[in-house]
Protein backbone atom coordinates (compact mmCIF):
# COMPACT_ATOMS: atom_id res chain seq x y z
CA UNK A 1 0.00 0.00 0.00
CA UNK A 2 2.84 2.53 -0.34
CA UNK A 3 0.96 4.09 -3.24
CA UNK A 4 -2.19 4.69 -1.18
CA UNK A 5 -0.37 6.22 1.77
CA UNK A 6 1.56 8.38 -0.69
CA UNK A 7 -1.73 9.51 -2.16
CA UNK A 8 -3.23 10.32 1.24
CA UNK A 9 -0.14 12.21 2.35
CA UNK A 10 -0.06 14.21 -0.86
CA UNK A 11 -3.75 15.07 -0.51
CA UNK A 12 -3.18 16.27 3.06
CA UNK A 13 -0.27 18.36 1.87
CA UNK A 14 -2.57 20.31 -0.44
CA UNK A 15 -4.49 21.75 2.51
CA UNK A 16 -1.85 24.28 3.62
CA UNK A 17 -1.27 25.25 0.00
CA UNK A 18 -4.95 25.94 -0.52
CA UNK A 19 -5.18 27.90 2.74
CA UNK A 20 -2.18 30.01 1.78
CA UNK A 21 -3.71 30.81 -1.59
CA UNK A 22 -7.04 31.77 -0.06
CA UNK A 23 -5.31 34.00 2.45
CA UNK A 24 -3.14 35.67 -0.16
CA UNK A 25 -6.11 36.51 -2.38
CA UNK A 26 -8.03 37.76 0.64
CA UNK A 27 -5.26 40.09 1.75
CA UNK A 28 -4.66 41.26 -1.81
CA UNK A 29 -8.27 42.27 -2.30
CA UNK A 30 -8.42 44.03 1.02
CA UNK A 31 -5.62 46.38 -0.09
CA UNK A 32 -6.61 47.05 -3.70
CA UNK A 33 -8.57 50.25 -4.00
CA UNK A 34 -12.24 50.18 -4.95
CA UNK A 35 -15.07 47.85 -4.10
CA UNK A 36 -18.09 46.33 -5.79
CA UNK A 37 -19.92 49.55 -4.97
CA UNK A 38 -17.35 51.87 -6.54
CA UNK A 39 -17.25 49.85 -9.75
CA UNK A 40 -20.97 50.32 -10.36
CA UNK A 41 -20.85 53.98 -11.11
CA UNK A 42 -18.38 56.85 -11.08
CA UNK A 43 -20.13 58.90 -8.41
CA UNK A 44 -21.76 56.68 -5.84
CA UNK A 45 -23.57 58.21 -2.92
CA UNK A 46 -21.32 57.46 0.10
CA UNK A 47 -24.39 56.37 2.06
CA UNK A 48 -25.37 53.87 -0.62
CA UNK A 49 -21.85 52.55 -0.68
CA UNK A 50 -21.87 52.17 3.09
CA UNK A 51 -25.17 50.31 3.05
CA UNK A 52 -23.99 48.01 0.30
CA UNK A 53 -20.81 47.27 2.19
CA UNK A 54 -22.82 46.47 5.32
CA UNK A 55 -25.11 44.20 3.34
CA UNK A 56 -22.20 42.30 1.84
CA UNK A 57 -20.33 42.17 5.13
CA UNK A 58 -17.44 44.17 3.70
CA UNK A 59 -17.16 46.49 6.68
CA UNK A 60 -16.30 43.68 9.06
CA UNK A 61 -12.63 43.47 10.06
CA UNK A 62 -10.49 41.40 7.71
CA UNK A 63 -9.94 38.53 10.14
CA UNK A 64 -13.66 38.14 10.76
CA UNK A 65 -14.35 38.01 7.05
CA UNK A 66 -11.54 35.54 6.55
CA UNK A 67 -12.80 33.34 9.38
CA UNK A 68 -16.34 33.38 7.99
CA UNK A 69 -15.08 32.55 4.52
CA UNK A 70 -12.98 29.63 5.66
CA UNK A 71 -15.83 28.28 7.76
CA UNK A 72 -18.15 28.35 4.75
CA UNK A 73 -15.49 26.96 2.48
CA UNK A 74 -15.09 23.93 4.70
CA UNK A 75 -18.72 23.06 3.98
CA UNK A 76 -18.18 23.47 0.24
CA UNK A 77 -19.87 26.86 0.10
CA UNK A 78 -17.86 29.31 -2.02
CA UNK A 79 -20.15 32.21 -1.13
CA UNK A 80 -22.47 34.30 -3.27
CA UNK A 81 -21.39 36.49 -6.11
CA UNK A 82 -21.71 40.21 -5.38
CA UNK A 83 -22.51 40.80 -9.01
CA UNK A 84 -25.09 38.20 -9.92
CA UNK A 85 -26.26 37.11 -6.46
CA UNK A 86 -25.73 33.57 -7.72
CA UNK A 87 -23.82 30.97 -5.68
CA UNK A 88 -20.19 31.02 -6.84
CA UNK A 89 -20.16 27.22 -7.05
CA UNK A 90 -22.86 27.17 -9.68
CA UNK A 91 -21.19 30.01 -11.61
CA UNK A 92 -17.96 28.05 -11.69
CA UNK A 93 -19.71 24.78 -12.50
CA UNK A 94 -21.21 26.38 -15.61
CA UNK A 95 -17.82 27.60 -16.76
CA UNK A 96 -15.63 24.68 -15.79
CA UNK A 97 -16.47 22.55 -18.80
CA UNK A 98 -15.58 25.16 -21.47
CA UNK A 99 -12.26 25.81 -19.72
CA UNK A 100 -11.47 22.11 -19.45
CA UNK A 101 -12.35 21.70 -23.12
CA UNK A 102 -10.05 24.53 -24.05
CA UNK A 103 -7.12 23.44 -21.91
CA UNK A 104 -7.24 19.79 -22.85
CA UNK A 105 -7.63 20.49 -26.55
CA UNK A 106 -4.73 22.95 -26.40
CA UNK A 107 -2.66 20.38 -24.52
CA UNK A 108 -3.54 17.62 -26.96
CA UNK A 109 -2.57 19.85 -29.87
CA UNK A 110 0.73 20.85 -28.30
CA UNK A 111 1.71 17.29 -27.35
CA UNK A 112 0.67 15.75 -30.65
CA UNK A 113 2.58 18.35 -32.66
CA UNK A 114 5.41 19.31 -30.32
CA UNK A 115 6.69 15.93 -29.14
CA UNK A 116 7.03 14.29 -32.58
CA UNK A 117 8.56 17.50 -33.91
CA UNK A 118 11.21 17.36 -31.20
CA UNK A 119 11.82 13.68 -31.89
CA UNK A 120 12.30 14.18 -35.61
CA UNK A 121 14.54 17.18 -34.99
CA UNK A 122 16.74 15.22 -32.59
CA UNK A 123 17.22 12.27 -34.92
CA UNK A 124 18.94 14.51 -37.47
CA UNK A 125 20.46 17.32 -35.44
CA UNK A 126 21.50 20.21 -37.66
CA UNK A 127 19.34 18.91 -40.53
CA UNK A 128 16.61 20.77 -42.36
CA UNK A 129 13.79 19.46 -40.16
CA UNK A 130 15.77 20.31 -37.06
CA UNK A 131 16.42 23.86 -38.20
CA UNK A 132 12.80 24.41 -39.21
CA UNK A 133 11.47 22.84 -36.03
CA UNK A 134 13.64 25.02 -33.86
CA UNK A 135 12.62 28.18 -35.77
CA UNK A 136 9.00 27.20 -35.13
CA UNK A 137 9.80 26.47 -31.50
CA UNK A 138 11.57 29.73 -30.80
CA UNK A 139 8.87 31.77 -32.55
CA UNK A 140 6.17 29.82 -30.76
CA UNK A 141 7.71 30.66 -27.42
CA UNK A 142 8.25 34.33 -28.17
CA UNK A 143 5.00 35.29 -29.88
CA UNK A 144 2.55 37.08 -27.62
CA UNK A 145 -0.70 35.17 -27.26
CA UNK A 146 -3.09 38.04 -27.81
CA UNK A 147 -1.30 38.98 -31.03
CA UNK A 148 -1.17 35.42 -32.28
CA UNK A 149 -4.85 35.00 -31.43
CA UNK A 150 -5.76 38.08 -33.41
CA UNK A 151 -3.68 36.96 -36.38
CA UNK A 152 -5.22 33.49 -36.37
CA UNK A 153 -8.67 35.04 -36.12
CA UNK A 154 -7.86 37.37 -39.00
CA UNK A 155 -6.55 34.65 -41.30
CA UNK A 156 -8.80 31.68 -40.58
CA UNK A 157 -12.04 33.43 -39.65
CA UNK A 158 -12.01 36.71 -41.48
CA UNK A 159 -10.00 36.03 -44.64
CA UNK A 160 -10.54 32.34 -45.24
CA UNK A 161 -13.84 32.08 -43.43
CA UNK A 162 -13.14 28.50 -42.40
CA UNK A 163 -13.95 28.83 -38.73
CA UNK A 164 -15.98 31.14 -36.51
CA UNK A 165 -13.91 34.01 -35.16
CA UNK A 166 -15.06 33.88 -31.53
CA UNK A 167 -17.68 32.68 -29.09
CA UNK A 168 -18.62 29.32 -27.69
CA UNK A 169 -21.42 28.48 -30.15
CA UNK A 170 -22.49 24.92 -29.58
CA UNK A 171 -19.18 24.17 -27.93
CA UNK A 172 -18.14 21.98 -30.86
CA UNK A 173 -14.69 21.55 -32.33
CA UNK A 174 -15.35 24.27 -34.89
CA UNK A 175 -15.53 26.88 -32.15
CA UNK A 176 -12.84 25.28 -30.06
CA UNK A 177 -10.13 25.04 -32.67
CA UNK A 178 -8.84 28.61 -32.96
CA UNK A 179 -8.64 29.39 -29.22
CA UNK A 180 -7.13 25.97 -28.50
CA UNK A 181 -4.42 26.40 -31.12
CA UNK A 182 -3.69 29.92 -29.89
CA UNK A 183 -3.32 28.60 -26.37
CA UNK A 184 -1.38 25.51 -27.49
CA UNK A 185 1.33 27.15 -29.56
CA UNK A 186 3.72 28.08 -26.78
CA UNK A 187 3.57 24.73 -24.94
CA UNK A 188 3.92 23.02 -28.32
CA UNK A 189 7.11 25.00 -28.91
CA UNK A 190 8.36 24.17 -25.45
CA UNK A 191 7.63 20.45 -25.89
CA UNK A 192 9.49 20.42 -29.19
CA UNK A 193 12.54 21.94 -27.54
CA UNK A 194 12.43 19.79 -24.42
CA UNK A 195 11.85 16.61 -26.42
CA UNK A 196 14.71 17.43 -28.75
CA UNK A 197 17.08 18.09 -25.86
CA UNK A 198 15.95 14.97 -23.99
CA UNK A 199 16.26 12.69 -27.02
CA UNK A 200 19.67 14.10 -27.93
CA UNK A 201 20.91 13.48 -24.43
CA UNK A 202 19.54 9.96 -24.32
CA UNK A 203 20.94 9.13 -27.76
CA UNK A 204 24.43 9.59 -26.34
CA UNK A 205 23.76 7.46 -23.26
CA UNK A 206 25.70 4.27 -22.68
CA UNK A 207 22.64 2.04 -22.89
CA UNK A 208 21.92 3.34 -26.39
CA UNK A 209 25.41 2.27 -27.39
CA UNK A 210 24.61 -1.13 -25.87
CA UNK A 211 21.42 -1.24 -27.92
CA UNK A 212 23.37 -0.46 -31.07
CA UNK A 213 25.93 -3.12 -30.21
CA UNK A 214 23.07 -5.61 -30.19
CA UNK A 215 22.62 -4.98 -33.90
CA UNK A 216 19.42 -2.93 -33.75
CA UNK A 217 18.36 -0.52 -36.44
CA UNK A 218 18.19 3.11 -35.37
CA UNK A 219 14.40 2.98 -35.57
CA UNK A 220 14.35 0.11 -33.08
CA UNK A 221 16.90 1.82 -30.86
CA UNK A 222 14.55 4.79 -30.63
CA UNK A 223 11.40 2.71 -30.23
CA UNK A 224 12.76 0.23 -27.71
CA UNK A 225 15.17 2.31 -25.70
CA UNK A 226 14.95 6.04 -26.27
CA UNK A 227 11.22 6.68 -26.24
CA UNK A 228 10.36 5.63 -22.71
CA UNK A 229 13.36 7.36 -21.23
CA UNK A 230 12.46 10.56 -23.04
CA UNK A 231 8.88 10.24 -21.83
CA UNK A 232 9.95 10.75 -18.22
CA UNK A 233 11.42 14.14 -19.07
CA UNK A 234 8.57 15.11 -21.39
CA UNK A 235 5.98 14.24 -18.76
CA UNK A 236 7.55 16.65 -16.28
CA UNK A 237 7.28 19.47 -18.79
CA UNK A 238 3.70 18.56 -19.65
CA UNK A 239 2.75 18.65 -15.97
CA UNK A 240 4.28 22.06 -15.45
CA UNK A 241 2.68 23.40 -18.60
CA UNK A 242 -0.80 22.42 -17.44
CA UNK A 243 -0.48 24.96 -14.68
CA UNK A 244 0.83 27.55 -17.08
CA UNK A 245 -2.03 26.91 -19.49
CA UNK A 246 -4.60 27.64 -16.83
CA UNK A 247 -3.06 31.04 -16.33
CA UNK A 248 -2.70 31.74 -20.03
CA UNK A 249 -6.25 30.59 -20.69
CA UNK A 250 -7.38 33.84 -19.06
CA UNK A 251 -6.01 35.87 -21.98
CA UNK A 252 -7.24 33.49 -24.65
CA UNK A 253 -10.72 33.13 -23.15
CA UNK A 254 -11.08 36.89 -22.98
CA UNK A 255 -9.81 37.28 -26.55
CA UNK A 256 -12.16 34.68 -28.02
CA UNK A 257 -15.07 35.48 -25.67
CA UNK A 258 -14.84 31.95 -24.40
CA UNK A 259 -17.18 31.46 -21.43
CA UNK A 260 -14.64 29.76 -19.16
CA UNK A 261 -13.26 30.29 -15.70
CA UNK A 262 -10.57 32.60 -17.08
CA UNK A 263 -13.00 35.14 -18.41
CA UNK A 264 -15.11 34.80 -15.25
CA UNK A 265 -11.98 35.62 -13.28
CA UNK A 266 -11.17 38.72 -15.35
CA UNK A 267 -14.71 40.06 -15.17
CA UNK A 268 -14.92 39.40 -11.44
CA UNK A 269 -11.61 41.14 -10.75
CA UNK A 270 -12.66 44.22 -12.71
CA UNK A 271 -15.87 44.45 -10.68
CA UNK A 272 -14.26 43.55 -7.33
CA UNK A 273 -16.57 40.55 -7.05
CA UNK A 274 -14.42 39.03 -4.35
CA UNK A 275 -16.27 35.73 -3.78
CA UNK A 276 -16.20 34.95 -7.49
CA UNK A 277 -12.49 35.82 -7.73
CA UNK A 278 -11.70 33.69 -4.70
CA UNK A 279 -13.69 30.79 -6.05
CA UNK A 280 -12.17 30.95 -9.53
CA UNK A 281 -8.63 31.12 -8.24
CA UNK A 282 -9.30 28.32 -5.79
CA UNK A 283 -10.63 26.06 -8.53
CA UNK A 284 -7.63 26.79 -10.75
CA UNK A 285 -5.25 26.05 -7.89
CA UNK A 286 -7.05 22.81 -7.02
CA UNK A 287 -6.95 21.71 -10.64
CA UNK A 288 -3.25 22.51 -10.79
CA UNK A 289 -2.55 20.47 -7.67
CA UNK A 290 -4.65 17.58 -8.94
CA UNK A 291 -2.82 17.46 -12.25
CA UNK A 292 0.55 17.55 -10.53
CA UNK A 293 -0.47 14.69 -8.29
CA UNK A 294 -1.58 12.74 -11.33
CA UNK A 295 1.76 13.38 -13.03
CA UNK A 296 3.62 12.21 -9.93
CA UNK A 297 1.64 8.98 -9.99
CA UNK A 298 2.33 8.55 -13.70
CA UNK A 299 6.08 8.82 -13.08
CA UNK A 300 5.90 5.62 -11.12
CA UNK A 301 4.22 3.87 -14.02
CA UNK A 302 6.83 4.99 -16.53
CA UNK A 303 10.01 4.99 -14.48
CA UNK A 304 10.55 1.91 -12.29
CA UNK A 305 13.29 3.69 -10.32
CA UNK A 306 10.71 5.95 -8.71
CA UNK A 307 9.22 4.56 -5.52
CA UNK A 308 6.44 6.05 -3.47
CA UNK A 309 7.90 6.08 -0.02
Amino acid sequence: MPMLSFLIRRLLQTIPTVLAVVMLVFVLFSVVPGSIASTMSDDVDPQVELRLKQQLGLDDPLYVRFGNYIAKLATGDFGTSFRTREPVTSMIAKRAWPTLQLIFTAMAFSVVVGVPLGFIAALRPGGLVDTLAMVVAVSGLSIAKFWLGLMIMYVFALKLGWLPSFGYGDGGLKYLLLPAVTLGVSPMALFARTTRAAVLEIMSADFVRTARSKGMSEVRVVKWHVMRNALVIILTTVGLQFGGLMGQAVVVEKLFSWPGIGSLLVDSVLQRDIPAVQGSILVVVLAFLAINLLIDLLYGVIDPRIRYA
Partner: protein
Amino acid sequence: MTGAPLIEVEDLRIDIGDGRSRVAAAEGVSFRIDRGETFGLVGESGCGKSITALALIGLLRPPLSIGSGVIRFDGHEIQHLSAAAQRDLRGNRIAMIFQEPMTALNPVSPVGRQIAEMFVLHKGKSWREANKLAVEALASVRVPAPERRVNDYPHQLSGGMRQRVMIAIALACGPDLLIADEPTTALDVTVQAEIIELMRNLCAERGTAILMISHDLGLVANVCRRVAVMYAGRIVEERGSTDIFRAPSHPYTKGLVDSLPRLGSRAALGRSRLKEIAGVVPAIANFPDGCRFNPRCASATDICRSVVPTADFLEAGGLVRCHHHA
Protein backbone atom coordinates in the same frame (compact mmCIF):
# COMPACT_ATOMS: atom_id res chain seq x y z
CA MET B 1 48.05 -20.44 -35.60
CA THR B 2 46.78 -22.60 -38.34
CA GLY B 3 43.76 -22.14 -40.56
CA ALA B 4 42.01 -18.90 -41.35
CA PRO B 5 41.88 -16.48 -38.43
CA LEU B 6 38.49 -15.46 -37.08
CA ILE B 7 39.27 -11.81 -37.32
CA GLU B 8 42.17 -10.11 -38.97
CA VAL B 9 42.92 -6.42 -38.74
CA GLU B 10 45.36 -5.01 -41.25
CA ASP B 11 46.92 -1.58 -41.08
CA LEU B 12 43.77 -0.05 -39.59
CA ARG B 13 43.69 3.71 -39.29
CA ILE B 14 40.97 5.46 -37.31
CA ASP B 15 40.49 9.15 -37.96
CA ILE B 16 39.07 11.76 -35.70
CA GLY B 17 37.59 14.92 -37.17
CA ASP B 18 35.85 15.80 -40.40
CA GLY B 19 37.07 16.01 -43.99
CA ARG B 20 39.38 19.00 -43.63
CA SER B 21 41.00 18.44 -40.27
CA ARG B 22 41.56 14.72 -39.79
CA VAL B 23 43.96 13.33 -37.27
CA ALA B 24 44.73 9.65 -36.88
CA ALA B 25 43.65 8.54 -33.42
CA ALA B 26 45.02 5.08 -34.19
CA GLU B 27 47.11 3.91 -37.13
CA GLY B 28 48.93 0.90 -38.46
CA VAL B 29 46.93 -1.33 -36.14
CA SER B 30 47.27 -4.96 -37.21
CA PHE B 31 46.47 -8.13 -35.32
CA ARG B 32 44.64 -11.40 -35.76
CA ILE B 33 42.55 -13.48 -33.44
CA ASP B 34 41.92 -17.16 -34.10
CA ARG B 35 38.70 -18.99 -33.32
CA GLY B 36 38.28 -19.53 -29.62
CA GLU B 37 41.43 -17.59 -28.86
CA THR B 38 41.82 -15.01 -26.12
CA PHE B 39 43.58 -11.85 -27.14
CA GLY B 40 44.26 -8.80 -25.01
CA LEU B 41 44.73 -5.18 -25.96
CA VAL B 42 46.44 -3.14 -23.26
CA GLY B 43 47.28 0.51 -22.93
CA GLU B 44 46.68 3.72 -21.04
CA SER B 45 43.50 5.76 -21.43
CA GLY B 46 43.40 7.44 -24.81
CA CYS B 47 45.85 5.07 -26.50
CA GLY B 48 43.22 3.98 -29.02
CA LYS B 49 42.27 0.57 -27.69
CA SER B 50 38.58 1.28 -27.18
CA ILE B 51 38.11 2.91 -30.56
CA THR B 52 39.83 -0.06 -32.17
CA ALA B 53 37.20 -2.28 -30.53
CA LEU B 54 34.38 0.00 -31.64
CA ALA B 55 35.75 -0.12 -35.19
CA LEU B 56 35.62 -3.93 -35.16
CA ILE B 57 31.97 -3.94 -34.18
CA GLY B 58 31.12 -1.06 -36.49
CA LEU B 59 30.11 1.36 -33.77
CA LEU B 60 32.41 4.30 -34.47
CA ARG B 61 30.30 7.45 -34.41
CA PRO B 62 31.28 10.81 -35.81
CA PRO B 63 33.75 12.44 -35.36
CA LEU B 64 35.45 9.03 -35.41
CA SER B 65 35.65 7.01 -38.62
CA ILE B 66 37.77 4.31 -40.26
CA GLY B 67 40.40 6.10 -42.37
CA SER B 68 41.94 3.11 -44.09
CA GLY B 69 42.85 -0.52 -43.56
CA VAL B 70 41.04 -3.81 -43.64
CA ILE B 71 39.01 -5.69 -41.05
CA ARG B 72 38.43 -9.26 -42.17
CA PHE B 73 35.93 -11.31 -40.21
CA ASP B 74 35.61 -14.99 -41.04
CA GLY B 75 37.33 -14.34 -44.37
CA HIS B 76 35.14 -11.40 -45.41
CA GLU B 77 36.03 -7.75 -45.33
CA ILE B 78 33.55 -6.02 -43.05
CA GLN B 79 34.75 -2.44 -42.86
CA HIS B 80 32.65 -1.31 -45.84
CA LEU B 81 29.58 -3.49 -45.30
CA SER B 82 26.15 -1.89 -45.58
CA ALA B 83 24.51 -0.80 -42.35
CA ALA B 84 22.04 -3.69 -42.54
CA ALA B 85 24.75 -6.29 -43.13
CA GLN B 86 26.76 -4.87 -40.23
CA ARG B 87 23.73 -5.16 -37.98
CA ASP B 88 23.45 -8.84 -38.85
CA LEU B 89 26.95 -9.39 -37.52
CA ARG B 90 26.70 -7.06 -34.57
CA GLY B 91 25.32 -8.75 -31.50
CA ASN B 92 24.87 -11.96 -33.46
CA ARG B 93 28.44 -12.95 -34.34
CA ILE B 94 30.44 -10.14 -32.75
CA ALA B 95 29.20 -9.06 -29.34
CA MET B 96 30.47 -6.50 -26.90
CA ILE B 97 30.50 -5.91 -23.15
CA PHE B 98 31.06 -2.40 -21.91
CA GLN B 99 32.82 -0.95 -18.93
CA GLU B 100 29.97 0.58 -16.95
CA PRO B 101 27.30 -1.97 -16.04
CA MET B 102 25.48 0.85 -14.21
CA THR B 103 24.76 2.85 -17.32
CA ALA B 104 25.09 0.26 -20.08
CA LEU B 105 21.63 -1.14 -19.36
CA ASN B 106 18.42 0.72 -20.07
CA PRO B 107 17.13 1.90 -16.68
CA VAL B 108 13.43 1.71 -17.56
CA SER B 109 13.36 -1.73 -19.16
CA PRO B 110 13.36 -5.07 -17.28
CA VAL B 111 16.63 -6.95 -17.71
CA GLY B 112 14.82 -10.01 -19.10
CA ARG B 113 13.39 -7.93 -21.90
CA GLN B 114 16.84 -6.52 -22.64
CA ILE B 115 18.17 -10.05 -23.04
CA ALA B 116 15.11 -11.25 -24.96
CA GLU B 117 15.66 -8.53 -27.57
CA MET B 118 18.67 -10.47 -28.83
CA PHE B 119 16.57 -13.51 -29.71
CA VAL B 120 13.92 -11.37 -31.37
CA LEU B 121 16.52 -9.44 -33.36
CA HIS B 122 18.74 -12.25 -34.53
CA LYS B 123 16.94 -15.55 -34.09
CA GLY B 124 13.50 -14.59 -35.34
CA LYS B 125 11.83 -15.61 -32.08
CA SER B 126 8.52 -14.31 -30.81
CA TRP B 127 8.61 -12.29 -27.61
CA ARG B 128 7.07 -15.19 -25.71
CA GLU B 129 9.81 -17.61 -26.80
CA ALA B 130 12.47 -14.96 -26.40
CA ASN B 131 11.41 -14.32 -22.80
CA LYS B 132 11.75 -18.01 -22.02
CA LEU B 133 15.20 -18.06 -23.59
CA ALA B 134 16.09 -14.99 -21.54
CA VAL B 135 15.45 -16.93 -18.33
CA GLU B 136 17.81 -19.65 -19.57
CA ALA B 137 20.40 -17.07 -20.55
CA LEU B 138 20.21 -15.51 -17.11
CA ALA B 139 20.57 -18.94 -15.52
CA SER B 140 23.65 -19.61 -17.64
CA VAL B 141 25.43 -16.58 -16.16
CA ARG B 142 24.59 -17.99 -12.70
CA VAL B 143 22.10 -15.39 -11.63
CA PRO B 144 20.09 -16.93 -8.80
CA ALA B 145 16.30 -17.26 -9.27
CA PRO B 146 16.46 -16.21 -12.93
CA GLU B 147 12.71 -16.64 -13.48
CA ARG B 148 12.11 -13.85 -10.95
CA ARG B 149 15.15 -11.79 -11.84
CA VAL B 150 14.09 -11.31 -15.47
CA ASN B 151 11.42 -8.92 -14.22
CA ASP B 152 13.89 -6.82 -12.26
CA TYR B 153 15.08 -3.46 -13.45
CA PRO B 154 18.80 -2.68 -13.59
CA HIS B 155 18.67 -0.49 -10.47
CA GLN B 156 17.47 -3.48 -8.46
CA LEU B 157 20.65 -5.44 -9.25
CA SER B 158 24.17 -5.08 -7.89
CA GLY B 159 27.05 -4.08 -10.15
CA GLY B 160 28.24 -7.65 -10.47
CA MET B 161 24.74 -8.89 -11.31
CA ARG B 162 24.36 -6.20 -13.94
CA GLN B 163 27.61 -7.23 -15.56
CA ARG B 164 26.32 -10.81 -15.56
CA VAL B 165 23.26 -9.56 -17.39
CA MET B 166 25.53 -7.81 -19.88
CA ILE B 167 27.39 -11.08 -20.42
CA ALA B 168 24.09 -12.91 -20.89
CA ILE B 169 23.09 -10.34 -23.52
CA ALA B 170 26.45 -10.53 -25.28
CA LEU B 171 26.55 -14.32 -25.36
CA ALA B 172 22.83 -14.79 -26.08
CA CYS B 173 23.24 -15.50 -29.77
CA GLY B 174 26.42 -17.54 -29.39
CA PRO B 175 28.78 -15.05 -31.02
CA ASP B 176 32.16 -16.03 -32.50
CA LEU B 177 33.88 -13.05 -30.95
CA LEU B 178 33.26 -11.31 -27.66
CA ILE B 179 34.78 -7.89 -27.23
CA ALA B 180 35.10 -7.02 -23.56
CA ASP B 181 36.02 -3.38 -23.04
CA GLU B 182 37.25 -2.98 -19.45
CA PRO B 183 34.53 -5.38 -18.30
CA THR B 184 35.47 -5.30 -14.64
CA THR B 185 37.03 -1.89 -14.12
CA ALA B 186 33.92 -0.57 -12.37
CA LEU B 187 33.56 -3.58 -10.05
CA ASP B 188 34.93 -4.62 -6.66
CA VAL B 189 38.03 -6.79 -6.80
CA THR B 190 36.27 -9.92 -5.54
CA VAL B 191 33.41 -9.49 -7.98
CA GLN B 192 35.98 -8.79 -10.70
CA ALA B 193 37.50 -12.24 -10.30
CA GLU B 194 34.06 -13.90 -10.42
CA ILE B 195 33.04 -12.06 -13.56
CA ILE B 196 36.33 -12.80 -15.35
CA GLU B 197 36.09 -16.44 -14.40
CA LEU B 198 32.49 -16.64 -15.62
CA MET B 199 33.29 -14.92 -18.90
CA ARG B 200 36.29 -17.12 -19.53
CA ASN B 201 34.45 -20.34 -18.76
CA LEU B 202 31.39 -19.53 -20.83
CA CYS B 203 33.51 -18.51 -23.82
CA ALA B 204 35.67 -21.60 -23.52
CA GLU B 205 32.57 -23.81 -23.43
CA ARG B 206 31.12 -22.21 -26.52
CA GLY B 207 34.33 -21.67 -28.44
CA THR B 208 33.89 -17.92 -28.42
CA ALA B 209 37.03 -15.90 -28.99
CA ILE B 210 37.65 -13.00 -26.60
CA LEU B 211 39.18 -9.64 -27.37
CA MET B 212 39.79 -8.17 -23.96
CA ILE B 213 40.58 -4.52 -23.59
CA SER B 214 42.02 -3.16 -20.40
CA HIS B 215 44.54 -0.84 -18.88
CA ASP B 216 45.36 -3.63 -16.43
CA LEU B 217 48.24 -5.62 -17.87
CA GLY B 218 48.11 -8.15 -15.06
CA LEU B 219 44.44 -8.92 -15.64
CA VAL B 220 44.84 -9.24 -19.39
CA ALA B 221 47.88 -11.45 -19.13
CA ASN B 222 45.93 -13.63 -16.74
CA VAL B 223 42.98 -14.07 -19.11
CA CYS B 224 44.55 -13.92 -22.56
CA ARG B 225 46.90 -16.14 -24.47
CA ARG B 226 48.37 -13.27 -26.44
CA VAL B 227 48.64 -9.61 -25.58
CA ALA B 228 49.16 -6.51 -27.70
CA VAL B 229 50.33 -3.31 -26.04
CA MET B 230 49.14 -0.04 -27.56
CA TYR B 231 50.75 3.30 -27.08
CA ALA B 232 49.55 6.59 -28.61
CA GLY B 233 47.50 4.94 -31.34
CA ARG B 234 49.98 2.25 -32.35
CA ILE B 235 50.65 -1.31 -31.29
CA VAL B 236 54.18 -1.30 -29.88
CA GLU B 237 54.51 -4.91 -28.85
CA GLU B 238 52.60 -8.14 -29.30
CA ARG B 239 53.61 -11.29 -27.45
CA GLY B 240 52.44 -14.39 -25.73
CA SER B 241 51.19 -13.33 -22.33
CA THR B 242 53.78 -15.24 -20.31
CA ASP B 243 56.62 -13.86 -22.44
CA ILE B 244 55.47 -10.32 -22.07
CA PHE B 245 55.75 -10.56 -18.30
CA ARG B 246 59.00 -12.49 -18.27
CA ALA B 247 60.89 -10.57 -20.91
CA PRO B 248 59.14 -7.45 -22.18
CA SER B 249 60.90 -6.03 -25.22
CA HIS B 250 59.56 -2.55 -25.72
CA PRO B 251 60.67 0.07 -23.19
CA TYR B 252 57.02 1.05 -22.70
CA THR B 253 55.98 -2.53 -21.92
CA LYS B 254 58.93 -2.79 -19.55
CA GLY B 255 57.72 0.33 -17.84
CA LEU B 256 54.23 -1.14 -17.51
CA VAL B 257 55.51 -4.42 -16.10
CA ASP B 258 57.86 -2.65 -13.67
CA SER B 259 55.09 -0.41 -12.42
CA LEU B 260 52.89 -3.34 -11.37
CA PRO B 261 52.92 -3.71 -7.60
CA ARG B 262 54.03 -7.20 -6.54
CA LEU B 263 52.98 -9.05 -3.49
CA GLY B 264 55.98 -10.05 -1.34
CA SER B 265 58.41 -7.79 -3.18
CA ARG B 266 59.37 -6.05 0.03
CA ALA B 267 60.44 -9.30 1.65
CA ALA B 268 62.44 -10.31 -1.39
CA LEU B 269 63.94 -7.00 -2.45
CA GLY B 270 63.63 -4.82 0.60
CA ARG B 271 61.78 -1.53 0.79
CA SER B 272 61.64 0.05 -2.66
CA ARG B 273 59.57 2.65 -4.45
CA LEU B 274 57.08 1.49 -7.04
CA LYS B 275 58.44 2.40 -10.45
CA GLU B 276 56.54 4.73 -12.74
CA ILE B 277 56.84 5.85 -16.34
CA ALA B 278 57.85 9.51 -16.40
CA GLY B 279 55.70 11.94 -18.36
CA VAL B 280 52.21 11.61 -19.81
CA VAL B 281 50.66 10.20 -22.98
CA PRO B 282 50.83 12.84 -25.73
CA ALA B 283 47.57 14.28 -27.03
CA ILE B 284 46.32 13.01 -30.39
CA ALA B 285 46.86 16.36 -32.09
CA ASN B 286 50.58 16.50 -31.26
CA PHE B 287 51.97 13.01 -31.39
CA PRO B 288 55.79 13.24 -31.58
CA ASP B 289 57.66 12.27 -34.76
CA GLY B 290 59.45 8.95 -35.00
CA CYS B 291 58.70 6.55 -32.19
CA ARG B 292 55.85 8.10 -30.23
CA PHE B 293 57.29 6.90 -26.96
CA ASN B 294 60.61 8.73 -27.45
CA PRO B 295 59.95 11.72 -25.16
CA ARG B 296 59.35 9.35 -22.25
CA CYS B 297 61.95 6.74 -23.14
CA ALA B 298 65.25 6.53 -21.27
CA SER B 299 67.08 4.84 -24.13
CA ALA B 300 65.84 7.14 -26.91
CA THR B 301 68.43 8.22 -29.50
CA ASP B 302 68.29 10.45 -32.60
CA ILE B 303 66.77 7.77 -34.80
CA CYS B 304 63.88 7.37 -32.36
CA ARG B 305 63.05 11.04 -32.78
CA SER B 306 62.83 10.91 -36.58
CA VAL B 307 62.10 7.41 -37.89
CA VAL B 308 58.99 5.40 -37.12
CA PRO B 309 60.18 1.95 -36.01
CA THR B 310 58.91 -0.97 -38.07
CA ALA B 311 57.71 -4.27 -36.66
CA ASP B 312 60.51 -6.66 -35.73
CA PHE B 313 59.42 -10.25 -35.42
CA LEU B 314 60.96 -11.92 -32.43
CA GLU B 315 62.42 -15.40 -32.51
CA ALA B 316 60.31 -16.44 -29.58
CA GLY B 317 57.19 -15.30 -31.43
CA GLY B 318 55.46 -11.95 -31.36
CA LEU B 319 56.64 -8.59 -32.57
CA VAL B 320 57.97 -5.33 -31.26
CA ARG B 321 58.26 -1.85 -32.72
CA CYS B 322 61.41 -0.34 -31.25
CA HIS B 323 64.78 0.66 -32.73
CA HIS B 324 66.64 -0.60 -29.68
CA HIS B 325 64.58 -3.50 -28.43
CA ALA B 326 66.17 -6.20 -26.36
